[in-house]
């Protein structure tokens, strides 16, 4: 990324190339391992703990326009150390959760920057350079092409994201700053995750090792789901993936997963952990709801898996040719026709 001001790096630390940043600061990992730098390691660790718990790190400061030079270093270095720690744990759930939360943090900053005349071009450039999406400005609105818009918006299930509920003209969709950045959250998250994945791991200083171990311990809290089976229909797979990413799945999507898996003979106890990563997870309510759906509590009615048609109308259907000829997800794989 060309010509990034240091202030921008504090907000978007993933734009910094780790090795280069350290070199420019005259630092090496060995330096950071020295006890003088322990606060950075602690800050990095804290950053991960906050992020993986589903919150957004540093959320008080989105309105803050300027960081002083020390703060900038703190911000960028703690991010760099954080991704080194994450890479060392080699646990996907942690990296994914961290990336998503950091993406949401960047999203907030991008939104603020889009609203300021001086910064709007820089923000649009980030979007353009990282994700090849052209966004145009029209007064205080943002225009994204219809194809670029629907490719992202179909992953959201709220009605207001449907194209029919947007202002559309000449091949462009009108958006406000908030909506514009919301649309690229997943891509931001993937980008940050890719930074972790592609990191060349140097030998770790001693002071890092303890925190890596702490993170491994922390990760036990989050279940890595083992439920994805290639036998599942695309709609069910999609739902599981959304939950895995720690993103929100609407009620209708959770209902699909629950009824489908119950119909395949899984128990409430087997299914419940699937929802653990949801931002609003609560063990008691989840169990209660699952028991209700399974018919083992309340009215005793066992709920059936919704039809493909119903799911299609709720934008939850992701049909592939393997879905040919079925009308309910539970039939998936049974009726496979030979073309």
């Amino acid at each position, binding site marked *: 990324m060309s010509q990034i001001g240091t202030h921008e790096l504090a907000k978007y630390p993933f734009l910094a190339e780790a090795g280069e940043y350290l070199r420019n600061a005259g630092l090496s990992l060995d330096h950071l391992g020295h006890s003088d730098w322990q606060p950075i390691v602690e800050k990095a660790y804290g950053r991960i703990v906050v992020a993986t718990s589903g919150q957004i790190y540093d959320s008080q400061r989105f309105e803050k326009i300027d960081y002083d030079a020390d703060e900038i270093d703190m911000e960028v270095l703690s991010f760099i150390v954080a991704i080194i720690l994450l890479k060392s744990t080699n646990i996907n759930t942690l990296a994914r959760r961290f990336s998503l939360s950091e993406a949401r943090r960047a999203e907030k900053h991008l939104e603020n920057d889009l609203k300021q005349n001086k910064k709007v071009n820089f923000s649009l450039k980030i979007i353009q350079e990282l994700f090849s999406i052209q966004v145009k400005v029209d007064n205080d609105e943002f225009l994204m092409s*219809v194809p670029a818009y629907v*490719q992202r918006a*179909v992953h959201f299930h709220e009605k207001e994201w449907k194209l*029919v509920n947007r202002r559309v003209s*000449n091949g462009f969709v009108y958006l406000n700053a908030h909506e514009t950045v919301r649309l690229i959250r997943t891509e931001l998250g993937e980008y940050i995750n890719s930074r972790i994945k592609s990191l060349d791991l140097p030998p770790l200083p001693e002071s890092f090792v303890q925190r890596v171990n702490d993170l491994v311990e922390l990760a036990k809290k989050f279940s890595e789901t083992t439920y994805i089976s290639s036998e599942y229909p695309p709609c069910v797979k999609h739902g599981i993936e959304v939950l895995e990413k720690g993103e929100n799945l609407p009620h209708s999507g959770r209902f699909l997963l629950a009824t489908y898996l119950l119909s395949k003979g899984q128990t409430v106890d087997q299914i419940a952990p699937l929802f653990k990563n949801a931002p609003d997870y609560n063990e008691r309510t989840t169990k209660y709801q699952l028991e209700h759906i399974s018919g083992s509590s309340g009215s005793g009615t066992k709920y059936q898996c919704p039809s493909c048609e119903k799911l299609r109308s709720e*934008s939850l259907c992701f*049909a592939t040719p393997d879905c040919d000829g079925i009308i309910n997800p539970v039939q998936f794989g049974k009726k496979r026709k030979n073309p």
Partner: protein
Amino acid sequence: MIEKDVLLITSAFKEYYFNRFDLIHVPQRATEREFGYQKFNSGMTRHLVVKNDKELHLLLMKEVPSDVYCSNAYYTFPNLPMAEKDWKGADLIFDIDAKDLALPCRKDHTVFKCSSCDNHATEFQSQCTKCGSTKFETVSVGCKNCISESKKEVTKLVDMMTTDLNVSKEQIEVYFSGNEGFHLRVTNADYEQLGSQERADLVDYLMFNGAIPESFGIKRQDNSKSSLPTFDEKGWRGRVARKLFSSKSKAPKATREIIASGYSAFQVQLEEIKKTMGVRVDPKVTMDIHRIFRLEGSINSKSGLSKIQCTNLDSFDPFLEACLLGDDTVDIIADCPVQIRLKNKKFGPYHTERVSLPKYAAVYMLCKGLGNAV
């Protein structure tokens, strides 16, 4: 279908395929597409590669298919099984079928065929008058009104594609489907990449499915904060405004009334607007990015008419321009209780009688199951 009928129809098709090479071409980027065909009384042959017009003509002459198809999708390996084809993109396609429009004229040109005996009736009956069976198949014959209403849908679709979605007129090809409707193909690189889900959302836009009052300024809670779009707005907001207020000057009064009637009343109005202004296409066709779609220039075995491009939609008369089979006379036993019009001539009604008809009309009745070869 019985063998005698197949013979008569196949010979008519063969003659057409032999004489009209000028009308039958592979679409652009043919080598990246999957072809398929069907023969009477047998299954589908798919996953074929047809590189150019010459290969296509050869295939038609050799196989004389009842129906020929070609993918809207582009693949790296079109001849491999679906999972290995490597999907690269697909034209946007639309299917507008008169039968989905449920027009009042349908009952005047629909025939009920008893599934157990050979009895044909023009009125719906709960039981066959001959054998008492309760199972019927329906066939519908060509109707001017159905065609002209379908054309209106085509026009609406083309308008929305060009104004709202920025597709140029040159990128939209309109075809008569060969039976009772129209097919559209849009070749626009920006839309080519879209997956099934995205296409479904585009279709909902065009059909005006899933619109919520909030998008048009009507609030569920605080009614006093509601406002409606204005006459000159772009896209659906403008269309809805123009529909709600018949003129600009009536807008302020109408706005007050609509807001006063509240959220659910407005929801009902949106449903109404969807019925009259939404484009009625078959969403499944547009969503399917692996479909093989009827090939232009080929004959539709449901009617014996050809799928051909309409360069001038307004004046296009499918029962003249797409009726391209020979006109030498053949004898058939016709059981066609409704009158049909082809090439500006009227035929029937016939009640299980032997008649001499031009080949195109005879084949039309055979294809519809309203006659048999002698």
